[in-house]
Each structure stands twice: as C-alpha cells, then as structure tokens.
C-alpha cells in the first residue's frame, strides 16, 4: 500500500533498502521510515496493548503514542514511525502475528 500518484507531491522510489522483519526479508525505499516500509509490506500489527495484549498498529505516526515500538538492531523501544529505514536493519516485534484482530 503506497501512494504512487499525488496531485502536488512527487515520489521518487528508486533506491531499494533491504531489511528484515522478524527474520523475514523485506524491501523498502530510501526515505521511508521503518513504520512506512512495514506498512507497505502489509504489516499492520505492530505491538500489543499492555494489559489485555490487544493488537496495536501504526497510530499517531509522530512519535507520541508508543504503539509502533519495536526492537531495531538490538535496541528496545525504537519509535519505528519516526526512524528512517537503513540497509540491513533487523527489526523485531514481539507480537503474535497469527493473532491479527
């Protein structure tokens, strides 16, 4: 899912960035945040709520809500909505991917 044509903005998706999400290889583009690249790859379930373990997705997308926190290159609590994607990034969420709703 990606906006390809826009009335006033131009998107230049040329340089691919390769990364892994929960050990699975994925592709994003230069300029993507980790969260945007995951969204484009069909990932909707980013984390679980604290008490009831309900699925949480990309929500505020500006670094406030905490729903998109994941472990990136071994560092916990990375705000994937605000962190730019880099080559060979190892992104890990602790969610049960089979439980999506």
């Amino acid at each position, binding site marked *: 899912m990606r906006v390809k044509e826009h009335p006033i903005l131009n998107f230049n998706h040329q340089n691919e960035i390769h990364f892994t999400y929960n050990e699975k290889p994925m592709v994003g583009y230069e300029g993507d945040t980790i969260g945007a690249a995951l969204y484009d790859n069909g990932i909707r379930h980013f984390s679980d709520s*604290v008490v009831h373990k309900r699925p949480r997705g990309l929500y505020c997308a500006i670094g406030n809500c*905490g729903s998109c*926190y994941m472990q990136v290159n071994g560092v*916990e*609590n990375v705000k994937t909505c605000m962190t730019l994607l880099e080559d060979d990034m190892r992104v890990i969420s602790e969610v049960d991917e089979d439980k999506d709703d």
Partner: protein
Amino acid sequence: MNRAEIVIVGAGISGLSIAYNLAKKGMKNIVVLDKSHFLAGATARCGAGVRQQWATELNCILARKSIEFFSHANETLNYHRDIEFKQGGYLILSTSKEEDIQFEKNVKLQNSLGIPTKHLTKDEALKIVPHLNPDSFTTATFCETDGHINPFLMSEAYYLAAQKLGVEFHFFNEVEDIVLEDGKIAKVITDKMEIQTNKVVDAAGGYAQEIGGMVGIDIPVYSENHEILVTERATQMLEPMVMSFSKNIYCQQVPHGSIMMGRNNPNALHNHDVSSSWRFLDKMAKTVNHILPEVAKQRVIRTWGGLYNITPDFQPIISDSNVKGFYIACGYSGHGFMFAPITGELLTEIILGEPLEYYAKALHMDRFNDMDKIDKEHSVV
C-alpha cells in the same frame, strides 16, 4: 446533620488502613473524608517500595509486621485483583568505609529482630544486579523479602474491604474546621457538610500539620516535595530495588517493565509544592548513569512530585493527643505506604483503648518534648 462515630481525615493509604482495621473490630459509622478524588495525594505518588532494612529498632519492627500483612493481603482483604507484591528484595549500596561500618550495625540489628538481611561483598551484589557499575560502591546489604507493591491496587484493596464493612467515604470534602466543645471534639466542618462526632483521626499526610492546627495542636512535622520519574517499559533487568543513601537514589523496575527512580532534594522548601523540576531530572540522570548505566539508557516518560511529611527523627507519629478524641497518624517521612498495615492496627488499638504492643509507646508525639533523647533514623532517601 450527619453523625459519625469517628471521622478520618484523609483517604490515603494510612486513612484506608485505619478505617479498615476499626471496621474489622466492629466499629460502626466510620466516615472517611478526602479533599480531592481517590488517590490524589502522596499514596498515589510514592515509589511504593516496602523494606525492612532500617537503622532504628522501631522502624524495623513496623516494617517487618507490615510486610507480613502485605504477603497475604490479597487473601486477607478478599481482593479480586492482585496487589502486585513483588518480593525481589532491596539491595542497598554502601559507598564508603563509614557506611560499611554503619551497615554492619544495621544488619546485626535487623537480624536480631528476625529480618533476614545479609551483608554482601561487591561480587555477591553484582551477581544479584549484574548491571551495577562495580566502581560505584564498596559493599551492599540485601534483604530478599523486601519488595515493591502497586500502590493503586493496594489502596483499592483496602478501600473495597473497608466499604464492604460499612465505612462511608466522601471525596471532594475538604475539612475547613474542627469544632471543640469543653476541650472535646464536637464537630467536623467541610466545604460541603458538617458531621457531629467525638473522634477525629488526622491521617492527612502532607496536610497533617494544618489539620492538627484546627484543634490547636502544633504537630512537629513539615512537608516537602520529593520528585520521582518513570521510564518506558524495558525487558527485565532489575530484580531488586537498588538504593543508596550516600548517592541519594532509589531505583526499581515494576512488573510491567517500567523503571521508577527518585532522590531527595536537600534544598527542598518546607511547603506543599508537588511540581517537577529540570534540576531533579538532571541530577537523577547523572546519578543513575553512574550507578546503573544500562538503566540510564531508558527514555523517561513522566516525572512528578509528592509530599513527604517529616518528623524530627524520621519515624512516624501514631498516637492520641492532649485533645480528647483527636488521634494522629502522620510524619511517616516518606514511608507511610510501607507502614500502612501496622498503622491501622496500632491506631485502632489506641482508639479502642486496648493494651498496646510495647514498642508502640515510642510512636507517641510526646517523644519530641525531649529532643535530646530521640532515636533518629538515618537510612532515608
């Protein structure tokens, strides 16, 4: 006009425990007043650690008895949730020869009172908390039955148990005056109502001095702001509470992963301020970065302040007074949460005129009439 057998001022953990214990002993018509909503004061703002490692005999006894209660509080209070009592211990760091010697004495005292504290070498302490900076301390004391409780859940447990026993709670009722007739309590006046009563308990925490003033008693306590912070959730890295008096820090990871830490401000003013300051954040960050560098990497999500109500010897006042029917439970000097169970038991004995435990006399406010004789607690952050 309303009538009550007793009016308890303050629905914090002390007032709750007193109300519950009185009701359990069969007292009827108990009214608890609070000037704000439930858990607006120091109880909800506290670090909620519970420890038995003290330097005075009195504090050791109060703490040990309270922990006995906490360890079966869910069952005793028939609570439908869990108070989250995590007994990960308290690791208290010594940072000098003098402190080593004091800690040796503390451990001896605690052991003699049945508290299983051990004096550990640096290597033994590092086995319990591997993230400690080995250069930041010399030895440590550890008591494995110390721990941490969720103060909101503990308070709710008391509140529901008290309510079930018939205790009446009125929030947003600020006590404005207490009327005496012939030297005895006659009436409590709030901003919303008047209650006829002959007994009042001052469990007003940071405002205990002001409530005492309403019956002409000058309780030797003052209030000051103590700040605290909480981090984002992290994977388990800190089993016990880590504490140092000389470095001025306490730091604990709660069960859901957040890490809480606080320190005192030696320049704090004696007032009711509970604001947060950048100075606290600056000093706290430096302190924790020195002692627990891994913990210091976590992001802070919130800071807040709460009132310590402090006595000259850092031990509480749990006593009656020279005004008939006026009882006091205040001056916990930052430890009211962890002493709450014993507070309720002792003050109930005092109010009902039952024979008192031998140590309880030392909690009377009269001890401050002779300031030279007080046994001062030094193990405080």
